[in-house]
């Protein structure tokens, strides 16, 4: 019952990690619930993922809204607004 978390660019630097396995609990069934759990870690997580901060979430490489479900085996990426091109 784990998911792969992926952090990119400025968030990867701030969190000091680019990829981690995250154990889902029964109450973490949406992106919103996952974000709440990550915020509880405090520090950079609480700060960068606070409501109103500009970041995006992709589940299995598709950008989603925060009510999107999260299932075991998913790859969930969190990253700043994109700046390529």
């Amino acid at each position, binding site marked *: 019952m784990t998911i792969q978390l*992926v952090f990119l*660019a400025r968030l990867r630097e701030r969190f000091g990690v680019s990829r981690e396995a995250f154990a889902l609990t029964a109450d973490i069934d949406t992106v919103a619930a996952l974000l709440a759990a990550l915020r509880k870690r405090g520090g950079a997580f609480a700060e960068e993922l606070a409501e109103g901060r500009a970041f995006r979430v992709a589940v299995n490489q598709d950008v989603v809204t925060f009510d999107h479900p999260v299932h075991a085996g998913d790859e969930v990426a969190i990253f700043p607004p994109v700046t*390529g*091109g």
Partner: protein
Amino acid sequence: MTCHVRVHEADFDLGAEIKALRLGNPAIGAVASFIGCVRDMNEGDCVGLMYLEHYPGMTERELEKICAEASDRWEIFDTLVIHRIGELKPLDQIVCVVVTSAHRGESFSACQFIMDYLKTRAPFWKRESTPHGERWVDARTKDDAAAERWKQ
């Protein structure tokens, strides 16, 4: 309609890419293309080096989706997107987009559409080195506005 997407460190040669796209298709009457380059100034600061990070896998997927949307909206033949990653310096090429079509209106619109969507949807991030140190480039609201107008 064929969609070509490439993400890599190596530089590219727009002329050669266009030649390859056009090869043997005499129905093509128009080729619109765009190159984005590293400037030596951004937000009022000198830029020495630039580093381009991306999200492997999602990047290619997203670029292919954007090209597919363009070919749903306009009568076009081929689309090509090349985006470089890794370390770049001023004057380097970052990205190119090429669209071929029978008439010019379609390739112009599709090329601009792909660039506008790439800027707001493709998972690339720029980090610049300036005299004040390193910084991640902020997303521009102007880019959101540019992408937004295609929804009308």
